[in-house]
């Protein structure tokens, strides 16, 4: 294939289509995935090609959707369960955390649960406290669950394709603000292997580690900073479990300064893990403490002003980077 312009949404959709064409045992299970085509249109028209037996519209029963996917995976299918919003993961944390995550282990390795749970999170639609969260930390904290969070169009495609070949349950969290983002990509270019982070930019002044939508804020900020002579290295984690720490170590040891950026609430979140890990492993190389730029420890409001204020944005990232690099001038 050649270069094509694709949205994040279409890349996801294409990944599903290709996986379903290749593997007749891939089935999609979720609310509105079929006739409706997905709340964010990722599964649009898939039911036409693959039929209602493979693109399965469910009642509004999140716990049983995940539970059914667990059973289906154990019984030989390759299910892609969908949660319309990651905010609904709370209802499913038993099936996800006590079943999917632990089945291989509890049963002594007899069987795995090769399922993918696709969902989307984050702010950007004035959707309020119950439809705007970034709950990846619950997943990252649960041993047994893999976690992928694509930031780019190419990764949306490749990570989903790879997730569908993994032997263990993968929670795959898209970002609602990225669906219409376009990139020119060649999907035939071999992707990074599963579990590898990507260095999106290299610079000598600080390392910024991030993932999902915040990558774009970070890249925008890095662009602004570069214009001012501040060069950031930007690492996009791509998957949070597995976590590819070596490139972080390498760059932080080289550069001596690190910021971590996450849309999730700061306390006990992904940024905390990254910060702790960097401090542990790169301590002697750090000139300054690792700085967390993360979501506020508050629910998300429907008011667009408050919503935007609740999560990191380009300005906060750039300001913080500037201050980190330029000898910490107080704001």
């Amino acid at each position, binding site marked *: 294939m050649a270069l094509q312009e694709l949205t994040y949404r279409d890349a996801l959709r294409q990944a599903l289509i290709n996986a379903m064409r290749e593997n007749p045992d891939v089935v999609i299970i979720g*609310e509105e995935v079929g006739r409706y085509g997905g709340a964010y249109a990722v599964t649009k028209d898939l039911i036409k090609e693959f039929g209602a037996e493979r693109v399965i519209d469910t009642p509004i029963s999140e716990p049983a959707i995940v539970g059914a996917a667990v059973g289906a995976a154990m019984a030989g299918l390759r299910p892609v369960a969908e949660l319309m919003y990651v905010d609904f993961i709370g209802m499913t944390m038993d099936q996800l955390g006590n079943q999917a995550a632990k089945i291989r282990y509890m049963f002594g390795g007899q069987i795995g649960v090769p399922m993918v749970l696709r969902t989307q999170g984050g702010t950007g639609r004035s959707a309020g406290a119950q439809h705007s969260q970034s709950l990846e930390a619950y997943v990252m904290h649960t041993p047994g669950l893999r976690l992928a969070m694509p930031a780019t169009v190419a990764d949306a495609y490749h990570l989903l394709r790879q997730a569908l070949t993994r032997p263990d349950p993968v929670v795959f969290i898209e970002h609602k603000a990225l669906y219409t983002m376009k990139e020119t990509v060649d999907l035939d270019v071999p992707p990074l292997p599963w579990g590898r982070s990507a260095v999106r930019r290299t610079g000598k002044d600080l390392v910024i580690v991030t993932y999902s939508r915040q990558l774009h804020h970070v890249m925008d900020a890095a662009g602004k900073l570069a214009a001012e002579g501040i060069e950031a290295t930007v690492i996009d984690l791509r998957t949070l479990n597995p976590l590819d720490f070596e490139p972080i170590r390498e760059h932080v040891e080289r550069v001596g300064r690190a910021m971590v950026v996450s849309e999730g609430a700061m306390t006990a979140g992904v940024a905390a893990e990254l910060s702790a890990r960097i401090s542990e492993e790169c301590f002697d190389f750090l000139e300054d403490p690792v700085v967390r730029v993360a979501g*506020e420890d508050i629910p998300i409001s*429907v008011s667009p002003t408050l919503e935007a204020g609740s999560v990191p944005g380009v300005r906060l990232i750039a300001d913080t980077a500037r201050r980190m690099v330029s000898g910490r001038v107080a704001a």
Partner: protein
Amino acid sequence: MTKPEGRHPAARPNSALPRHYRVMRRIRSFEERVGELFVRGQSAGSMLHLSIGEESAAAGVCAAMEGGDTFTTHHRGHGIFLARGADPARMMAEIGGKEAGYCHGKGGSMHIADMGLGHLGANAIVGGGIAAVVGAGLAARHFGSGRISAAFFGDGATGQGILYESMNMAALWRLPCLFVCINNQYGMGTRIDQATANPRLHERALAFGLAGETVDGLDVEAVAEAAARLVAGARRGQPAFLAVDCYRFYGHARKDKSPYRDTAEEEAGRRKDPVAHARALLLQRGLAAETDLAALDSEIDAEMDAAIDFTIAQKEPPLSSMFRDVYAPEEPEPEPVRARIDRVLARD
């Protein structure tokens, strides 16, 4: 148009129909204005779920409720809240994400509430507000208040297990609870018969030991009668489930054009219009003249136009309000990320 001829041809004594009609007419008008707010770019987002076509559930059931009764609603709850006495201007302002809204712009359409009116909250989680009425029922009994608590939700929520857990508790403890399922035939693009093998939803309630009925939502008087009966039972400790059959006239949310259902079905569905039906009955029974109804129309339209104007004139909440009300007012607010970064960076 509905053909009320042959149905309830005679006025009932002390008819509540004019009251019901007024409530329904206000809801209809309000919801139309919500659509307008969206079109004018003044709503906070597009997650607006209009209850047009479902007005009889709100008007009929709420008429059976009393002051002090509590309730929770779902994401399509504007009408219910209005029927319980909400101020349309503060509602509209909330839907616009403005500071003057019921929740100061934090909640929006899906999280609108007024505790003063017994509204324990709208919910954006399908089924998320149902269990709360069990607790409110326990409280009513504990305080001997004589109050009931009603959960309003859609047919889609019958997919959620917590509904059955809650109904089971209510029946077991004989709580003054009412479970009102507004069956508008769809959960997003899924017709009720695509979501269950047995769409006679009240049978489930019976199996758990509740009273249960299904009523035709075209007829607000029938809804009100069923609700009155079931609410009375609930007050005596016989919890109940009421399914109100109706039709979701428009898309699921503002951007949905319902491509998954055909025009014939939609047209038939929209003929089941409880507002038009009640209007025709009022005229037919001589309970109102065309001129009265036209006057009412103008009054309500003016009220709702004022709600829109009010909303547009209001401010967004200040950024500083973001940290307020995470915890009780007497507690410290969460420290902003920016302040934490400042502290870390200014450490020398």
